[in-house]
């Protein structure tokens, strides 16, 4: 495309099919303990 550079083609809708296994890290177990950040967690099934 000439005008648009897409950084992420993944759509969240596609994660509905296999998502929700619950094996990934609880957000507060990483480093924050005061905010809630899930966008930077990784999916256990993609490791």
């Amino acid at each position, binding site marked *: 495309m000439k005008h648009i550079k897409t950084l992420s083609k993944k759509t969240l809708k596609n*994660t509905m099919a296999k998502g929700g296994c619950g094996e990934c890290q609880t957000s507060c177990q990483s480093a924050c*303990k005061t905010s809630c950040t899930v966008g930077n967690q990784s999916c256990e099934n993609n490791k």
Partner: protein
Amino acid sequence: MIHAYKNNGYNIILDVNSGSVHVVDELTYEVIPLFEHKSREEVIEALKGRYDIADIKEVLDEVEELKEAGQLYAEDEYRQFVKNFKGRKTVVKAMCLHIAHDCNLACKYCFAEEGEYHGRRALMSLEVGKKALDFLIENSGNRVNLEVDFFGGEPLMNWDVVKELVMYGRSKEREYNKKFRFTLTTNGVLLNDDIMEFANKEMANVVLSLDGRKEVNDAMRPFRNGKGSYDLIVPKFVRFAKMRDELGLSYYVRGTFTRDNLDFSKDVIHYADLGFKHMSIEPVVGSEDEPYSIRQEDIPKIMEEYDALAKEYIKRKKEGRGFNFFHFMIDLEQGPCVAKRLSGCGSGTEYLAVTPWGDFYPCHQFVGDEKFLMGNVYEGIKRTDIQDEFKLCNVYAKPKCSECFARYYCSGGCSANAYKFHGDIKDAYDIGCDMQKKRIECAIMIKAALAEEE
């Protein structure tokens, strides 16, 4: 829903409901928000005075192609899905063990009041700790990965119990088909070679508390006699982090910034200059009458700091001496599923905090507030009403989140902060939201900047 913003010379379009991210030219940056509610003809009419009609049509063709692919103007189709997800039987999979309600530092902003959590000084007994792990195993259903954070106060003040509990947990893994991931959060005062060696064998993650530059750290993190802690802990943390880097093990140097160091980007850079590779600095959360608390008027300065930090972050990455800042990490391709993104942090349901005497609270931030006492390791969850309240708490239950682009990244934010400022876990801590949104914008911009190199 579209979130369009400019940062560091990039025009960025986040298609909120699909999670797709696009970097676009000026014309496209104007077309995409317009085309959300207007027809092709109306968009051309609105822009033809300033842009060439052929160019506008070309952009519209590209935009329509992305719309077709589900990467622009995607609908929020997740409400019922998340409701079903949250409606599943509750399992507990993570615990924050308050190994010691005591501390050898007297940090001025401590939400735990120097480790005591509005209560008495106490150490968790081995018996209580074992009961907690038993409860976790019994109530974790078919989840394999179980997380246990040794927290405080300062957990190294009760280190023998930590070691025994790790061994106890390991001894149960095979029989119950579970895998424990242990985390240690420490201020470093009692850290020594034996502890580092044990942690490198058994702790999946360690969180090392340090506030950055010496003067900043020592002003907020003194010993009880007023002396600063920096000189004692930094050499140990540097060595510990280097070991874990070499072993490929996770760690975070983690600090808190306050109104007294709104130039906190310098503290993050200080971590990097000390040789740390993984770090986080969190805004202090305190009541408005505390002099160190962050106020609404501080927000513009904080936004500038995140921008400054993002630029330095990119610069160092490009120079091959990059570091990871927790809040700038974002995985646009392999990130969490939508269920994880929208269902909240899990406090009070799959995540519980356990006090030294075995009481359950929804998370470490609620410990000491009797209204949230849910049960204990001997009797299990007694207050299922509290559990149900947390279970229903997700982004769709939070009115402030419904129009916010950040909801897929913060999962509705911290319930404890919402409760602290508004008395309702379904509200949101507004200053925290402003900062969270900025961090997400910076994180995406960094991806755009680094993608240029590829």
